[in-house]
């Protein structure tokens, strides 16, 4: 029994080494500490960290700001569309044409990730593919801290004629 126990410990150590190597080789490294918001976001959309979201931003992903319009106006991810979660049903017809076929990243404030998660849940309920729908679990604060593109103003609020202007293309 003692030998079996030693072998089990050896397997456990090998597994730890394998886990480190496997994670190092992943395109998106899994963090060894997760933000508390991760555990509150359970919509089924894929969680994403700021660094990876920044890469998708550069690739042309659509960002949806689930906060209220006044919060959005105070500062948002540059190019993000404002879709207040309470109004998603009214905005969905317009929104669907924007997000169709794109990678979509939903965000809110980090301490209210539930807003982003609720919007993600709503989009999933309307058939948005899970593999291309993400929740930015660190929220906009980490985005700003990382020095990624941010903007102010209300020029990308859905329901205000957005989409008719060519300059608004994502």
């Amino acid at each position, binding site marked *: 029994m003692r030998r*079996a126990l030693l*072998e*089990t410990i050896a*397997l*456990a150590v090998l597994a*730890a080494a394998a886990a480190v190597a496997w994670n190092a080789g992943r395109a998106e490294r*899994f963090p060894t500490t*997760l933000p508390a918001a991760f555990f509150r976001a359970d919509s089924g959309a*894929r969680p994403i960290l700021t660094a990876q979201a920044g890469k998708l931003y550069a690739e042309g992903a659509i960002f949806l700001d689930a906060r209220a319009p006044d919060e959005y106006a105070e500062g948002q991810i540059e190019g993000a569309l404002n879709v207040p979660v309470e109004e998603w049903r009214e905005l969905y017809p317009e929104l669907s044409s924007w997000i169709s076929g794109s990678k979509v990243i939903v965000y809110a404030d980090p301490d209210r990730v539930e807003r982003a998660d609720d919007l993600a849940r709503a989009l999933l309920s309307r058939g948005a593919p899970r593999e291309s729908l993400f929740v930015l679990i660190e929220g906009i604060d980490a985005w700003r801290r990382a020095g990624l593109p941010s903007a102010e103003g209300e020029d990308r609020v859905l329901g205000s004629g957005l989409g008719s202007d060519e300059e608004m293309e994502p």
Partner: protein
Amino acid sequence: MRWRAAILWLLRLGLCALYIFAAAPKLADPWAFARSIHNFKILPDGIVPELALWLPPFEGLAALAVLTGLFYRGGLLAISGMSAAFAAGVASAMARGLDIDCGCFGEAAHSRANLPHLLLNLASLAAGIVLLAASARSVRRHPTPARSPRR
């Protein structure tokens, strides 16, 4: 005694297949596995990411150890221990009325923490114990020279 050896081989292959099948999707998506662990509300969130990274390779390596015979008894002990822990987790979730995805075979399998999964874990625990006992009996019958009692 052929039937006995055949049954032991079937148990061995079954356990290996079960644990490799369980490990692969968790390796591919640690995010989903971390959420499954969290959903049980047993462990502190601080250790969830490490566990989500470590447990799938441990499952896979234990299964490979049993399959190849290298660290055979260690692999069996690991599988038995994991099966006991998983059974306890599922039973605990059921007792608390948690209707959660157990994450046993990855998120896509949508396996719930319910009676069938409790029974599956208990069955794999029983298989592990049977194989460990058979291995111990075999060692007693055919001791290696290093273990032979001195005359």
